[in-house]
């Protein structure tokens, strides 16, 4: 489904690489966890996959279902089925959540050659999805993420994911700063979406999310490189040992 080969990226031409040659293959039905210390490049990887214009790809390639993902505009990637849950969801005062979700949902429908839904028909769909994040309809009349608590913003990302039903969901630290109940909601949201033809990449700092969502593979990102891959026990090892020991591993990888 997703094939990343030797991906390098920086924040602009002439800038040092933040991603220094990442290779990763994600197959349909799989859940991959990417862990690593702060500043190792996890968000950069997630944003580059979503097409954030602030980053320049300096090498390598990415294929999504055989297509050149890096050649696609951000909105084309979304229509193709790639979804990024932002580490820092963006506030948009003046636009209601209901409108935002419907606009996005209708873009997908248009992309599939289907008719757009009016607010009433969309409401039926939305009501189902709201159950996943345990929200009432009142959150839909609030402006997108505006004045939301950290936890509410993360839940809103999960709601968007539930409405858009992506093939590949990339969750960038959606678990950070959540209490145990909110964490459950996020995990349930991801699990509810799980299907043999869909895949998930979980960027996380902690192993606790992985108690609720069992990953097929865990990767460790350190200084722009994937320095280790393994099963879910790797997450436990990281939890026990911390990230310091990785600098030696990283040197070996570079050498």
């Amino acid at each position, binding site marked *: 489904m997703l094939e990343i080969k030797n991906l390098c990226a920086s924040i602009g031409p002439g800038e040092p690489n933040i991603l220094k040659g990442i290779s990763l293959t994600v197959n349909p039905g799989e859940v991959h966890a990417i862990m690593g210390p702060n500043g190792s490049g996890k968000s950069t990887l997630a944003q580059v996959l*979503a*097409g*954030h*214009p*602030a980053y320049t790809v300096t090498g390598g390639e990415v294929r999504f279902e055989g297509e050149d993902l890096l050649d696609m*505009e*951000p*909105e084309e*990637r*979304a*229509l193709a089925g790639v*979804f*990024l849950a*932002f580490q820092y*969801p*963006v*506030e*948009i*005062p*003046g*636009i*209601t959540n209901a*409108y*935002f979700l419907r*606009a*996005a949902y209708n*873009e*997908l429908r248009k*992309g599939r050659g289907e008719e757009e839904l009016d*607010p009433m028909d969309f409401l039926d769909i939305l009501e189902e999805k709201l159950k996943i994040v345990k929200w009432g309809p009142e959150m839909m009349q609030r*402006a997108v993420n505006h004045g939301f608590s950290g936890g509410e913003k993360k839940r809103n990302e999960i709601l*968007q994911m539930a409405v*858009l039903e992506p093939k590949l969901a990339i969750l960038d630290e959606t678990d950070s700063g959540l209490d145990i109940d909110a964490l459950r909601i996020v995990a349930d949201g991801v699990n509810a979406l799980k299907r043999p033809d869909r895949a998930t990449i979980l960027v996380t700092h902690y192993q606790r999310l992985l108690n609720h969502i069992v990953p097929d593979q865990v990767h460790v990102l350190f200084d722009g490189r994937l320095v280790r891959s393994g099963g879910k026990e790797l997450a436990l090892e990281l939890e026990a040992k911390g990230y310091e020991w990785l600098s030696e591993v990283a040197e070996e990888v570079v050498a």
Partner: protein
Amino acid sequence: MIDQYRAVFDALPTDGVPEWLRPVRQTGLDRFMAAGFPTSRDEEWRFTPLGDMTRTPFAPAGPPRAPVSQADLEPYRFGHPEWPALVFVNGAFAPELSQTADLPEGVMATSLARALMTDPELVEPHLGKHLGADATPFAALNTAFIRDGAYVRVPAGRTLASPINLVFVTSADADGAMTHPRNLIVVEDGARLSLVESYVGLGESAASFTNTVTEVTLGQQSWLEHTRIQRESEAAYHIGFSHVHQVRESHYRSFSMSMGGRVSRHNLHTRLDAPNTEALLYGLSIGHGEQLVDNHTTIYHDKPNCRSWEVYKAILDDHSRGVFNGKVFVTPEAQQTDAKQTNRTLLLSDTARVDTKPQLEIFADDVKCTHGATVGYLDDLPHFYLRSRGIEPERATQILTYAFAAEVMDEVAVDPVRHELDQVVRTRLGIMDRI
């Protein structure tokens, strides 16, 4: 060039004009003749290019060649047909287009010319009385030409169920013609009113000149929401002056929307003339092409314990220009004044520009007065956020532009007025579905 205005004045019909009004008009003319048109050397008009306008020999507008019909006004309909409405075509009251059937007892909504004939004793205490030395030369010129306009009076304690529409229409063939509508709005003690004052141009290219003055007087504990919508032809000159006089515990809220005119200027002055008085001034300007949209506001905090809150926004595309000047005067007596002013401009092109200037003159020491101005382009991050959800870049720009406008439109208190306004803005920004 200004001599032509004296000739117009001399030719004004005097029938039906009360004795007391003649010196008022004369004073207006004298003031205008003494001051002349402002130029870019006048600090107050530095950024407002009036040269072409002042050199044009505008003639008083006559009736349009083909009468304006209800159908012509349909695209500019604001609110429900049942709302009371006074419609003026090229400055003259058009009773056949107006709707004043179901006004509650005691409420008056009629033309000023009629009110001067039927109820001069109600008009005289207010007309021209509050407009002070701060009146612009244009306002003085308007006073010289006082003839017709809207007169609305809500007697003490009355509340109107629906908003009143005032619609000033310039016909498509009004190129080179001028109108000077003069409006008087009296909201007495404890009365409540929502008023929508619209200026519309039916032609795309009529270079007409509208020079309008609206005087508002608010009694004790009265409440007025005053929505002003300027959508004249984009070749037109629109100069407007609104003066509000407020007494104890009155609440004035204004939403001033400017999107028409080649050059438009609106002065909104409000005087908080008694303690515990409140004024909320909101504004939204939308410019494109070569338009210039100018807003000047002045808030006089004359008495203690008053609050003013002001948010003006502008959205400027292409080569358009915005001007904002916000004055707040706080007298030594006006302790405990709470005044906040915000001006925000969104530039949609790198050839659009804005000149913005707050002007706070504070002579009391125990006050809370702040101001802030921002000018900028759309943020990249929300734009990317929308795109990452499948929304095309042009559409994302539209949505975020609308969002910028919606934040200030949300402050309109009367629901149906806010919904209508929302429709006007969405149409103007090319967003057809409801957000």
